[in-house]
């Protein structure tokens, strides 16, 4: 029953360290990663199967709640073509930078592509505080960041599906195989859309009348697990299914009752997600971090530059001036949850090794520290330039 002690300590330290980081003005995810690193050094030297399973559930629930709580199909429908242009440009540049590192260090094609995919998403939540403090949330670059972040997540998930399927073929897929991957994805999404249109609302209309305790909550979780399982049946990864399942429930009234949402969030962020982040900390190979060499430095620098340059170019393309484009570029630099889900899948499937894994975790941590500071400087820079001109 040693695992009970491990879970207890993970949750305790994750929340305590998370609180310390929150109070210092940084996201709690850093504390959760740190708790895993500390426990990995002091106590948990071998990853148990139970911990691994709980961490996988954490990744599933992290993406399920992202879809269920944060994405609205309405927002997607209304998102502008401009946002898709700027998102695609910044993803192409970030992806190319990531893949280029792999090629430069003679990594396999698959590993190089995976680094590119891991460079692609953005975690906008990290800079929301800065945007609010600087009164920039409603600005042109601010609203573009918010719209772009939705596309960013979806394209990231799509790229992950491709790379995960490529890994199962253990080689670069042929044209036919790529077509099969695409057909599988389309079939999965089509089934989920049909369920949303024909089944989910009707199902919850009945479920809310059930007499058993917590029926709605239980069925929301059932759908999260069902979507994850169905995705695996289609050869996609469980987290992709969980995310899409969450999106499909995001406008079902009974599934979105406030106290049901708070229970789902409680299960995710009270138990599974901290274990997932801590598990990443535990899995970090300290030895590879101690020998931070050119590779890790390049991963950090190019991941940040890729988003900055891609964001800048994309914004210029849609007509932003240099200042707003710079602000947008810094705003889309931070990475957090989705990237960590990506690399944990990559490690679990044997696509990336310890060194790549550790370097990307380091990149995530650095991006969380530097993005808000650089964004603030860029906004101040623009304000100063404007006041000098007037």
């Amino acid at each position, binding site marked *: 029953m040693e695992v009970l002690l491990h879970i207890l300590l993970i949750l305790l330290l994750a929340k305590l360290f998370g609180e310390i980081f929150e109070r210092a003005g940084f996201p709690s995810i850093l504390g959760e990663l740190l708790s895993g690193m500390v426990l990995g050094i002091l106590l948990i030297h071998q990853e148990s199967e139970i911990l691994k399973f709980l961490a996988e559930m954490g990744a599933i629930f992290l993406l399920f709640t992202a879809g269920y*709580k944060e994405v609205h199909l309405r927002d997607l429908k209304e998102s502008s073509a401009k946002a898709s242009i700027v998102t695609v440009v910044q993803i192409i540049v970030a992806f190319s930078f990531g893949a280029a590192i792999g090629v430069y260090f003679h990594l396999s094609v698959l590993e190089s592509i995976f680094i590119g995919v891991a460079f692609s998403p953005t975690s906008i*939540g990290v800079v929301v505080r800065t945007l*609010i403090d600087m009164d920039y949330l409603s600005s042109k670059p601010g*609203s573009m960041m918010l719209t772009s972040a939705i596309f960013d997540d979806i394209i990231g998930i799509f790229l992950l599906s491709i790379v995960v399927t490529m890994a199962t073929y253990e080689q670069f897929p042929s044209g036919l195989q790529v077509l099969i991957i695409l057909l599988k994805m389309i079939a999965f999404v089509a089934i989920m859309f049909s369920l949303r249109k024909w089944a989910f609302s009707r199902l919850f209309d009945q479920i809310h009348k059930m007499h058993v305790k917590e029926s709605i909550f239980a069925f929301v979780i059932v759908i999260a697990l069902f979507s994850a399982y169905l995705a695996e049946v289609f050869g996609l990864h469980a987290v992709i299914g969980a995310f899409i399942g969450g999106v499909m429930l995001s406008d079902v009234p009974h599934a979105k*009752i406030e106290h049901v949402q708070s229970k789902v969030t409680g299960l995710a962020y009270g138990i599974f997600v901290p274990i997932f982040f801590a598990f990443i900390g535990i899995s970090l190979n300290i030895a590879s971090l101690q020998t931070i060499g050119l590779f890790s430095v390049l991963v950090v620098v190019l991941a940040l530059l890729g988003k900055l340059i891609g964001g800048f170019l994309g914004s210029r393309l849609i007509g932003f001036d240099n200042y707003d484009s710079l602000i947008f570029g810094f705003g889309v630099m931070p990475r957090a949850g989705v990237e960590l889900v990506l690399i944990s899948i990559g490690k679990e499937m044997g696509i990336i090794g310890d060194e790549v894994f550790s370097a990307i975790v380091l990149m995530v941590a650095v991006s969380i520290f530097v993005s808000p500071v650089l964004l603030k400087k860029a906004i101040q820079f623009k304000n100063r330039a404007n006041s000098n001109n007037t």
Partner: protein
Amino acid sequence: MVDNDGDEDRIRSERSFAERCSEMFIKNFMTKDLVTISENDSIDQILETFDKYHFHTYPVVNEDNILVGTIDQDTILKILLVHRAPRSEHTHLNAVVFQGDTAKAIMVPHPVSISPDEHLCTAADMMLKHKIDRFCIVEDGKLVGIICKPDLIKEVYKLRGSD
């Protein structure tokens, strides 16, 4: 003996109360004279509404009077105190709400509604079970009324009194 008689009276009264409650339709007790917010109302117009009236939640309707969402005091407070929001509130969705400039952008777009032909007891059961304080009453998608806990308590109290 007195206690037994008292129990029987109570059981009889509760039975008749439950039966009668099941025969009462929401349409007869809902508030029909509603203060609504239009989905295109600006934040200033919404704040004026909250200042003028003192309801907790307002239904948001489109130009065809179709219920499209709700805006409650919590959302308004969140927007007004945006600079004090804790980091855990810095989610993508909240950021979209914080920067919204119309009702459509800040409303909760998936309100649980109920039909005017449902029984009063059904509404009461749902309120208790799902910790919901009020329901928008919708017929063919159109908003026709609202019923909240005080309305229910008033009617239930009347019923018990008549027993």
